[in-house]
Every structure is written in structure tokens, then in C-alpha cells.
């Protein structure tokens, strides 16, 4: 709906309401100040900062390997991908070439992490629409990935498995077998997701044509990740600026042009299939070799600026490092996908109902610590 076409409100018609910071469907401590006219949303003003921890400031006091453990705490659902961004930036700055084995393992875990993240999103999106059963189906399958993570590096959620120069330790001997088992299992289970939610006529009614966002707007707002690709904005960093082992794998970027809530949903479901393809191509070909390059005990980046883009589960994640040659960064800036994906929420949801706002914000898949940093 066009925001401009709607008549302005008189003072008596205006009904403002605070959605959050404690609200089941803002997925954390996000506060949306809504102005309503009856059930219709007239204005969405996000209020951030409830979980602002000043991570960028903290990084200025820490060494590079230490900052990796703070990136976990941004988008905790794609922790490994975020860890990797800092490691890649440091490796590129020092011109260290990591062994192929490291690249393969990193990419496989990236994709497993992406699947796990999309599974949790699927759970929560179903909940946002009022279908409570999705939550348990998604978590049931996500548990298998977390078990693989646990066996590999001891952590389930915040992996911190990457270190500059490679991995913290080698993969577990069972890693390949379990990952293959999981892919086999999940190929059978993913159609269940479609049967339970995607094909449901109520779900389709609730999401098709809701929250339309054009390609031009998506680029202009910097809407990246699955929401951007649903609008037809080809923004997959894995394709355009491949890193790690992505050049070795064949995969296609999922693109839709409809740009509504349903296609933001569809992109993520298709991405899970695509991620499984990537893993299947890589898992049998993990080359033998070292799991890390020997780095100096104190890592100092040469003076200059470094930027590394990676594709996190929610969109493009960037880390911008300014170094003055010391052991800790002079300035570290994280370009977090959720922060940028929040801005379009107002434009997407004006003129729709409250229930649509919940569906739209669910389809943008917010992780609040990533916004607030």
C-alpha cells in the first residue's frame, strides 16, 4: 500500500502502542512504537539500544583474536560466519594463505550454521503467524546440527571455532559421517516443512502480497540477505565476492522478484536446499593437510584499512578494521545485516494490519543483539 495515499490522522483517531521491548514477536528487546488507526498500522518507529553493549568500543581495547569472540555475540545464530569475517580480514591483511582444508571446513560449517539459523527462523515465523507446531519441528532438526557442532568444537551456539590462520583444532573424525547423515535425514524432513506451513492456504493468504518491497527500494535501503533477494536484489556475497571454499562449489543464488512476505519465506526454504547442495559437494572432498597456519603469538595488522564482507544468514555482514599497526584495532566497525534490514520496516508495513506487521517483521528475521551491537 502506498504510504502517501493514506490520509493524515487527527489527534483523536491516533492510537499509539508500544510493541516491545517485552513482546513475544519482536524476538528480543526490540521496541516498535506504533501508531494505529483501528487495526491499521500508520507508523512504525523502532527504538533500539536495549541491548547495546558497545562491542565496537570494547574491540578497540582487545587484541584481534579476542575480538572474534565478541562477533559471536552479535548475530548469535550465525556465529561461525561472523567469526569467519574477522579471521578473513586479519588473514587478508597479513597476506596469509590458509590451507584448503581450512577453507572447506569453514564453508561446510558456515552452511550448516545457515541451515540451523533458517530452521530457527522457520520455527519463529510459524509462531508469529500463530502456527505453534512449527516450533517443535524446526527445533527437532536443528538439534542434529547443534550436535555436530558440539562434537566438532565443544560449543553448540557460539562456536568460536575460527582463529586467524585457520581453525582452533582439527575436525572430529565423525564430522564427515555425521554431516552426511544429517543431509540424508534433512532431505527427507524439509518437505515436511512445506507440508505443514508452506502449502497451508491460511499461511498463503496471510503472506502473499503482504509487505511488498521493490528492488529499487531494497537497494536504496541496503536490504540484504534473503529479504533483499526476495525483492530481486542480487546481493549474495558468496556469489559476487566469493571467499573460503565457495569458489570450489557450484550453487545458484536464490532470486525472486515478487518481494512480498511469502517470497522472503520462500527464499529461505530454497536456501536450505541450496546449502545442502553446497555441503554435499564439499564434504567428500575435504583435502588432507594442516588445520591452521602458524601465526605469530601477537597479531599486529599493518597500518591501513581492511574491509571484509561475508554472507551471514540474515544478510551481508561486513567488518571494517582501521589499524594503526598495534596489536589492537584502532577502530572496528561491524556492518550488521539486521541493523540495515530494520530500516525498511516502516515502509513495508504502513497500511497493513497489526497481524501483517508481525508477519513482515518475522519475515525480516530480526536478531536484536545484532542491531544494537
Amino acid at each position: 500500500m502506498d504510504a502517501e495515499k493514506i490520509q493524515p490522522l487527527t489527534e483523536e483517531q491516533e492510537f499509539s502502542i508500544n510493541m516491545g521491548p517485552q513482546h513475544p514477536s519482536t524476538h528480543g528487546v526490540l521496541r516498535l512504537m506504533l501508531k494505529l488507526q483501528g487495526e491499521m498500522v500508520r507508523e512504525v518507529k523502532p527504538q533500539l539500544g536495549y541491548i547495546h553493549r558497545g562491542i565496537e568500543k570494547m574491540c578497540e581495547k582487545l587484541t584481534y583474536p579476542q575480538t572474534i569472540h565478541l562477533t559471536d555475540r552479535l548475530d548469535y545464530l550465525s556465529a561461525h560466519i561472523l567469526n569467519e569475517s574477522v579471521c578473513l580480514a586479519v588473514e587478508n591483511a597479513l597476506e596469509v594463505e590458509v590451507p584448503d582444508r581450512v577453507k572447506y571446513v569453514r564453508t561446510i560449517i558456515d552452511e550448516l550454521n545457515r541451515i540451523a539459523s533458517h530452521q530457527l527462523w522457520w520455527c519463529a515465523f510459524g509462531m508469529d503467524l500463530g502456527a505453534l507446531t512449527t516450533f517443535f519441528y524446526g527445533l527437532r532438526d536443528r538439534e542434529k546440527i547443534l550436535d555436530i557442532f558440539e562434537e566438532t568444537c565443544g560449543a553448540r551456539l557460539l562456536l568460536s571455532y575460527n582463529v586467524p590462520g585457520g581453525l582452533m583444532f582439527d575436525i572430529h573424525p565423525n564430522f564427515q559421517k555425521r554431516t552426511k547423515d544429517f543431509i540424508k535425514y534433512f532431505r527427507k524432513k524439509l518437505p515436511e516443512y512445506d507440508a505443514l506451513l508452506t502449502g497451508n492456504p491460511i499461511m498463503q493468504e496471510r503472506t502473499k502480497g503482504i509487505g511488498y518491497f521493490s528492488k529499487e527500494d531494497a537497494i536504496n535501503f541496503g536490504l540484504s540477505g534473503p529479504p533483499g533477494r526476495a525483492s530481486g536484489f542480487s546481493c549474495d556475497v558468496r556469489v559476487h565476492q566469493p571467499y573460503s571454499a565457495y569458489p570450489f562449489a557450484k550453487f545458484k543464488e536464490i532470486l525472486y522478484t515478487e518481494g512480498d512476505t511469502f517470497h522472503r519465506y520462500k527464499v529461505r526454504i530454497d536456501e536450505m536446499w541450496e546449502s545442502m547442495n553446497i555441503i554435499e559437494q564439499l564434504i567428500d572432498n575435504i583435502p588432507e593437510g594442516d588445520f591452521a597456519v602458524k601465526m605469530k603469538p601477537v597479531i599486529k595488522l599493518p597500518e591501513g584499512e581492511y574491509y571484509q564482507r561475508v554472507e551471514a544468514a540474515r544478510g551481508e555482514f561486513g567488518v571494517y578494521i582501521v589499524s594503526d599497526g598495534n596489536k589492537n584495532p584502532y577502530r572496528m566497525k561491524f556492518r550488521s545485516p539486521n541493523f540495515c534490514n530494520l530500516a525498511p520496516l516502516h515502509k513495508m508495513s504502513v497500511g497493513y494490519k497489526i497481524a501483517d506487521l508481525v508477519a513482515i517483521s518475522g519475515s525480516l528475521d530480526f536478531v536484536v543483539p545484532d542491531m544494537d551491537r
Partner: protein
Amino acid sequence: MENNKLQELIQNFTPEAEITAGKQFLTVTVDKSRLHELAKKLKESEETQFDYLFCESAVDYNDYFMMVYHLDSTTHRHQLVLKAKITDRENPEIDSVCDLWEAANYHEREIFDLFGIRFINHPDMRKIFLDNDWVGFPLRKDYVDKVNVVER
């Protein structure tokens, strides 16, 4: 587009721009008064079409601030870093690029909040993370927080 061609083009747009070819990106430094003009040209010109602002940040170099704009073109797939220096520490101001890239809206609010740089013509210049009564700008190098930070 190749970096050297891009370099020539930008030299045509703004002759006084200082261009350095970095390891990763081509870096263009302009005076803050010319920033908005150049940004508009970079976005709208057929040959450059920098339509995607993927990162905007500020760096505090103790005696001046540096605004850093990371630009990408979705049609030509080339990147560029645009920089502008702000020397006034007491009352730092710069033109907003929010009218060109909507993505700048939140980034600029964040910079306003954490660096205290005011953006002229920004539609909604409010703090984004911190409380309205927060004193100081945390990401500045001279910021001291006696309560929460223990100096070792």
C-alpha cells in the same frame, strides 16, 4: 569498471579529489563541502551507478573525524570508498547522504549518537542507541567513562 577508469571519471567530477588505489578498494577523499555533490554524481552517473551504500562509518583520528562511505554498484559490480574529513571537533557537521541512499538513515543516526557528528538535512536526527540524557560520545577516542570502564 576498472579502478583506473573509475579514477579518471572521478577526477573529472571533482578535480580536487584525492584518489588513492588501496589494496582492496579505490579510496576517494574529498572536502566535506563537496561530498554530497560528488556522492550525487557517483550515484546518478550512468557509468558509475553507485546505488548500494553497504557501510557508512566514522573514525576518530584524535584531531579530526573521517567519514567513510563504502559504495557498491549493483549493475557494474565495482566498489569505492568515499571519505570526507571533519576537522571541527567542537561542532562537527556534514551533509547527510540520506536523500541519496535511504540506508544512510540509520547509520547516520548511529554516528550522531556515538560520535556526535551532526548531519545536515537528515530527516530524523535523533539518538538511536543511547538514552537522550547520555553525556559524551562513546566512540570518540577522548571519551572517558569513569563508572563502567576500569583502566588498567
